[in-house]
């Protein structure tokens, strides 16, 4: 029974995402499984389980490193682990110009280049929480933000 409840917990909560806790990436330890209750008039039972887990919650004004996923005229999308960040063109430094003819398409200034696969340091300006994912918007138009090696 214990094993079943444990397995079920792993299956049900790992990889989910809520507005309150962000992403539940992995359950680390199960602290307590309470006595189950059979729900009257129903075949199922309910168990309360206390567990600790690794969560990932992006906050506004937090600085994160991300990998560029896509570059187009509107801006840049990047991934920081499970969630995506969109950096609008207006939040990219003005000296970085979009070059659709380069392969792959990129934003570049004289010494820096943003293209797919590049690593950028982004400040999160806002987050939107969906049922199954979090999406963030970010900026690299500030001191010490931009492409990193």
């Amino acid at each position: 029974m214990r094993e079943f409840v444990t397995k079920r917990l792993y299956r049900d909560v790992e990889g989910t995402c809520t507005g309150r806790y962000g992403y539940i990436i992995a359950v680390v330890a199960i602290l307590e499984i309470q006595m189950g209750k059979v729900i009257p008039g129903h075949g199922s039972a309910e168990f309360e389980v206390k567990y600790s887990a690794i969560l990932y919650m992006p906050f506004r004004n937090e600085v994160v490193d991300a990998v560029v996923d896509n570059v187009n005229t509107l801006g840049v999308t990047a991934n920081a682990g499970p969630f995506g960040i969109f950096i609008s063109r207006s939040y990219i430094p003005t000296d970085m110009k979009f070059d659709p003819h380069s392969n792959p398409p990129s934003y570049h200034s004289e010494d820096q280049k943003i293209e797919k696969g590049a690593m950028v340091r982004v400040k999160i300006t806002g987050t939107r929480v969906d049922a199954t994912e979090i999406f963030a918007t970010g900026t690299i138009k500030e001191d010490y933000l931009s492409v990193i090696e």
Partner: protein
Amino acid sequence: MMRMQKNRGPKRPQAVETFDAGKLELGEDFQDAECLLISEVKVLLEAQYESKKEESNFTPVYLKTLEYVQKFSRYTNRDTIKEVRALLKPTQLAPFECAQLGNLCCTEYDEIKSLVPSIGDKISDDDLDSLLKQMDSLKKYQA
């Protein structure tokens, strides 16, 4: 002429965005939570990955995070991670700020103060500078 109030239907719930990492306002659930370094998450996730490899039913979130932490982990060695933690522990900084220090790995105190503004005056520039230097040298000399 009487002005009619237009009926705009039921009021839509507006997103309340009060959390602000720049001011260290993380909401009650996260305010006192322990914050892990990316390198620590890597150690934990890799250990779990090894032990559960046979079942091989990892969620996409898990795999994406694993890939991310492997890319951005600054400290490769478990002992180095412990030493960094030991350096950060005696400071007056909040868990979130400690994690940011360890993850962003800046070399100048101006830089980290600009990226994590909540640090502010919690720590003197000289102390912060020596802390960053020590962390940097740990990173350089890790096996």
